[in-house]
């Protein structure tokens, strides 16, 4: 707190201002965060995590950033122009959000994961979570973002996450979307990687009635490496919709995308992705895989991979699959004496467990298991 002894506060009554007389205009009672089943493993298995709580998009005013992290309310100036609004929703977010900006420096203790708990419980209201992560040169960090709401909530979430990685930085990022079943979400996550920066991201999507996530990653500096993963499990009549863009605008870059979904009941999975290699982005490696497991007659999955290659010296591939549980896998496990419904549960759980090797964040394996088990139960109802 300033005092009147400081020149610019001189002559004022600032000493008499007692902040404890006032509360901030936003409820910050986020003890309910534990209601998010999927957040549990992250919090349990990362006891040393730096937890940043936000409530309906407003940051907990009690948060004091530790050494190596700068907390801001606007995007760092040098990067704001790099992220233009992708559509009307991200534009609205830009207008209406209260941004949380974290600049992570090389002196941050990278063994301490940063967990941004975004708890939303507004009713029939649109909320605009906004997170901007800047990872400075040579810095290394793990960031987990959890979007959670109580089961009865019926809000519209329009989250935007922007990741800017300076040269030689490394980031492990995890998004956990565990919104209530009546919520809707239209989200964006955009990353921009400078030279030799490495990103590995994992998005786990469970909740909402309609959930759309638009993921873009730009290889903006030579030799950058972007690894994008997602796992999602649709049940009820959920629509889980994923759009991706891997854009290579610098040489020697690498991007690898692996999105995996399972659809049960009357759910609908959508994947549409594009690899775009700009002129000049030579020696690019870019891969894109989308796999869908369709578990019920009423469920469906659309998968549309695309390539737009403007350069010759590149290695690119895309693969997609949509289908029921593999009959050979089913028979193989049944021939070991396992009851068919247990076989199905094993195969579906395994389908997701396989993703755990694609993130280094502790707790991912447990979350994937919880996601598969919870959804499986819902499916079997």
């Amino acid at each position, binding site marked *: 707190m300033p005092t009147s002894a400081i020149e610019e506060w001189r002559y004022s009554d600032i000493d008499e201002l007692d902040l404890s007389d006032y509360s901030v205009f936003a409820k910050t009672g986020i003890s309910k965060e534990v209601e998010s089943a999927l957040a549990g493993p992250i919090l349990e298995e990362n006891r040393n995590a730096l937890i940043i709580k936000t409530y309906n998009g407003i940051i907990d005013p009690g948060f004091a950033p530790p050494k190596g992290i700068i907390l801001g309310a606007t995007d760092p100036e040098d990067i704001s122009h790099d992220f233009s609004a992708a559509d009307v929703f991200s534009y609205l977010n830009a207008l209406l959000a209260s941004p949380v900006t974290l600049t992570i420096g090389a002196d941050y203790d990278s063994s301490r994961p940063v967990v941004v708990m975004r708890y939303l419980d507004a009713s029939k209201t649109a909320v605009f979570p906004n997170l901007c992560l800047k990872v400075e040169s040579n810095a290394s960090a793990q960031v987990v973002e959890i979007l959670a709401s109580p089961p009865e909530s019926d809000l519209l979430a329009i989250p935007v996450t922007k990741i800017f990685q300076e040269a030689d930085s490394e980031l492990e990022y995890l998004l956990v979307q565990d919104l209530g079943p009546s919520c809707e979400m239209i989200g964006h996550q955009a990353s921009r990687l400078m030279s030799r920066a490495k990103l590995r991201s994992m998005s786990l999507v469970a909740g909402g009635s309609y959930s759309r996530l638009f993921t873009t990653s730009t290889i903006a500096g030579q030799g950058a490496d972007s690894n994008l993963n997602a796992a999602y499990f649709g049940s009820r009549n959920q629509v889980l919709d994923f759009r991706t863009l891997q854009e290579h605008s610098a040489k020697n870059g690498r991007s690898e995308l692996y999105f995996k979904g399972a659809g049960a009941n009357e759910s609908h999975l959508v994947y549409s992705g594009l690899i775009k290699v700009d002129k000049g982005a030579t020696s690019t490696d870019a891969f894109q895989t989308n796999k869908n497991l369709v578990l019920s007659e009423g469920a469906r999955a659309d998968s549309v991979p695309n390539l737009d290659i403007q350069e010759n010296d590149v290695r690119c591939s895309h693969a997609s699959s949509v289908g029921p549980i593999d009959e050979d896998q089913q*028979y193989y*496990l*049944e*021939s*070991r*004496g396992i009851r068919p419904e247990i*076989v199905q549960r094993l*195969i579906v759980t*395994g389908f997701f467990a*396989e993703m755990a090797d694609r993130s280094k964040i502790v707790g991912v394996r447990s979350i994937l298991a919880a996601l598969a088990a919870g959804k499986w139960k819902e499916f079997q109802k």
Partner: protein
Amino acid sequence: MSQVHVLRIENLRANVGQKEILRGIDLELKSGEVHAIMGPNGSGKSTLSHVLMGKPGYEVTGGSIHLDGTDLLSLSAWERAQAGLFLVSQYPVEVPGVSLEEALDAAFETQSRDSSNLHQDVLAEANRLGFPLELLGRSLNVDFSGGEKKRNEMVQLAVLRPRFAVLDEIDSGLDIDALRDVSKRVEEATNDDQLGVLAITHYSRLLKELRPDRVHVLVRGEIVTSGGPELASQLEKTGYAEFGVEEPVAMDGTGIFRTSQ
């Protein structure tokens, strides 16, 4: 003395699509016995193994399969496994995200068997069979070599302890060391647990490791002749020619097939 179990196949006929592949098979296998079924390509060897295990897509048009008093044809694959039958697959299937121990645990769960010693049993068998321990926690068969896949099948067999095992071309894709280890474990199971074995193979080399009590020759869906182990040696010399099929029975040391006489 443990109880003697009997696997009895009588006049078994089966179609794949419209085509009759098995045309009346008769065979009786008892606990502790090793029977070999040898036959050229397309004789119905793999069809027999899948029909025994109950793989969907095969239509049984006649005959019966009984394990002791149980009519296996009325059961689905998992129930046949519970009744005591095990199939060592020719091509073990990759199951991403499911480990050996998880699968065995699920099998024990289905059968309400006590799994408290499962982990130790799996470790002991993996060691005994030369199956790399670091693969135990990995996805079943994913990125396993040919030898690792078959050793993995054998770990499952050894832990599940079935009454009868069908080995479907267990020698395919195996080097001689792996073949020896796998055969040794099968033989031990026939001695220690009185496992009955039906070894299905094209080539005679398996039968040098796994000495069969009986050899049956399967040609065009029928057992055309049966005999003692000497039948395998005889076939090695003549190939399947006397049954009207020009295919060799032995492979030379380099793994290249010898041409038949």
